[in-house]
């Protein structure tokens, strides 16, 4: 059965389909505003005419290419190509500014590959038991995990803790706008019917990064050389053996975070890249180097976002529960071909499952080859003067923001958040906490409300759930510890000032 499955993808047609899927995915991923979710949605109808294996393999290939492709613009333009590559901008951007764009791309691609491979291994070998554990997660566990992920904001505190906290609170607040899905109450709609659905995440992120960057450039002005970035050089994969050894723990940890978050329903690569980045920063011996262009940040972000792909496929294939928006569409694709994913899938269509695993693996290898082959082409983007490039990128952002829901309101959202993002970056409010609040705020709320219904409005009963209790205690610990650190720093600073 295993061999039958693997052999079924080893034909020119499937290879061609994988290649097209990966390339189209990379293009969508690398253009800010266009995401792998949108690309899968647009390509879904094309796959109906194919065999089930080819159709679903194409969707997975797009997913792999799209998630990885986001790193290209994140590094070269400091604008994330997809929400999954937000954290890649924090260190990838500064690396490119230092003239290490080639190295950053090389490392990002290499670890995207490794992250995906590790998640495929998880999918192949431990999917059923993992899915069983995940199935035990009710709203109370989900609430505690999301709350814990939110406390990672504390790792992103720089010199002014209030600014990081404000940024996080703003993100949560923005996520709460619109009608509550639990109670149906309208919130902060101020009479606008467009606000009933709240702010869509993608336009908010486009605003915070792309539009804010345009406004920033307008305010700073472009130097007479056209704003060229330094030349780049790249050897091998861009990483030395010593660096690889140093980063091994970071890599494994980020991959596990990515797989874990991928499995959980509702959250995926958009959350895991920031969480993995924050954890890497918190655990690092040199946290002060984060944000100035150190490879640790790029590795954490790019490993985890791609690891979330395999993670998200685990509950999809074993339980029929999609882990994120892309896998929800893949589920649709499977159903249309008359395949119902679930525990029986491995028995009834074993060769299809193994074929998909093999297709997933080949897509990952194709992604590695295509992106490496393309590096020279990608960095050519930097030869285009900034005054042309940014205007062009903004038009593409409009395509992405409007194209997703065909709503002018989304386009306005990106302008509003571009304005806010401009002031945030000018006055050093970190953007990462806001993004984390934005992607997790609604999850925290919905699961809290559901959990409180379970426990008859008794919050303390949450502690009787072992998994939840562990995460709640860790969350409390992280909060207390960061307060302690902040106060200690403040006292030391005051002492130093008094001594001077």
């Amino acid at each position, binding site marked *: 059965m295993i061999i039958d499955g693997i052999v079924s993808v080893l034909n020119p047609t499937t290879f061609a389909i994988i290649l097209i899927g990966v390339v189209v995915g990379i293009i969508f991923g690398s253009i800010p505003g266009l995401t792998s979710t949108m690309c899968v949605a647009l390509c879904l109808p094309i796959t109906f005419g194919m065999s089930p294996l080819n159709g679903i393999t194409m969707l997975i290939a797009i997913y792999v290419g799209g998630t990885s492709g986001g790193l290209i613009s994140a590094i070269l333009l400091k604008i994330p190509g997809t929400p999954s590559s937000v954290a890649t901008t924090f260190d990838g951007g500064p690396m490119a500014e230092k003239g290490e764009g080639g190295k950053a791309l090389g490392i990002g691609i290499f670890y995207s590959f490794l992250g995906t491979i590790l998640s495929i291994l998880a999918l192949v070998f431990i999917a059923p038991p993992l899915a069983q554990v995940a199935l035990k997660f009710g709203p109370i566990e989900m609430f505690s995990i999301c709350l814990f992920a939110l406390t990672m904001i504390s790792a992103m505190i720089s010199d002014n803790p209030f600014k990081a906290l404000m940024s996080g609170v703003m993100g949560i607040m923005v996520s709460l706008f619109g009608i509550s899905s639990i109670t149906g109450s309208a919130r902060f709609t101020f009479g606008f019917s467009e606000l009933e659905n709240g702010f869509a995440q993608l336009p908010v992120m486009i605003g915070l990064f792309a539009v804010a960057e345009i406004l920033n450039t307008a305010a700073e002005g472009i130097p007479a050389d056209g704003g060229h970035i330094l030349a780049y050089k790249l050897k091998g994969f861009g990483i030395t053996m010593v660096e690889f050894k140093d980063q091994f723990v970071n890599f494994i940890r980020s991959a596990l975070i990515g797989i874990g978050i991928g499995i959980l329903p509702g959250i995926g690569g958009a959350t895991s890249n920031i969480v993995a980045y924050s954890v890497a920063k918190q655990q690092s011996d040199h946290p002060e180097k984060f944000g100035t262009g150190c490879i640790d940040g790029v590795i954490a972000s790019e490993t985890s976002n791609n690891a979330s792909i395999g993670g998200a496929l685990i509950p999809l294939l074993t339980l029929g529960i999609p882990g994120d928006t892309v896998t929800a569409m893949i589920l649709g694709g499977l159903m249309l071909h008359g395949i119902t994913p679930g525990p029986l899938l491995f028995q009834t269509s074993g060769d299809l499952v193994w074929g998909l695993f093999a297709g997933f693996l080949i897509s990952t290898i194709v992604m590695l080859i295509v992106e490496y082959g393309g590096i020279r082409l990608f960095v050519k983007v930097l030869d285009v003067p900034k005054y042309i490039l940014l205007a062009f990128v903004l038009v593409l952002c*409009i395509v992405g923001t409007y194209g997703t829901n065909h709503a002018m309101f989304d386009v306005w959202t990106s302008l509003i958040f571009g304005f806010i993002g401009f002031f945030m970056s000018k006055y050093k409010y970190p953007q990462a906490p806001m993004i984390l609040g934005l992607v997790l705020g609604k999850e925290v709320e919905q699961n809290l409300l559901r959990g409180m219904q379970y426990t008859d409005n008794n919050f303390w009963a949450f502690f009787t759930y072992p998994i939840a209790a562990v995460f709640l205690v860790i969350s409390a610990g992280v909060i207390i510890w960061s307060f302690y650190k902040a106060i200690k720093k403040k006292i030391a600073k005051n002492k130093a000032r008094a001594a001077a």
Partner: protein
Amino acid sequence: MGTRKRTELIIDIVLLVTGIGLFISSRTIDPGSAIGLGGDFMPKVIAVLWILISIGLLVNEMSTPDDHNKELTASVKGFVATFVLLFAYIMLLDVLGFVISSALYMFIQMCIFLPKELKSKRNYILFLVLAVVSPVLINILFVEVFSLILPTGIL
């Protein structure tokens, strides 16, 4: 007072006022649920946190020494011009359609961005060509190949 400190204080006050506004607005939310917490719970909690943090920001900024630097580090003119341009672009999307409004936007934006030293007839002709060709190509690619819907306007 230096420009930086004044702007920081203005931002902090705007944040505080926004927080108070959001809190007042959150008090009008219908809980909508008989058991457990209502849909008004989180907005209220977050609004209170928002207010507390903005007070923290304000107090912290007041105790920060002033650099008395009155110079502006950024060009207000460039910022306002680009913001107005983006506003006009989005306004016109529905009226003129994607291709025409994007062409107008791209041309004007590139002119705003262009450094003084590089102003030449050659560059403007290049901009004109790019501004027309790129939206047309993007439109063909996404509308024809990927069957995405973009605003058509009067076209």
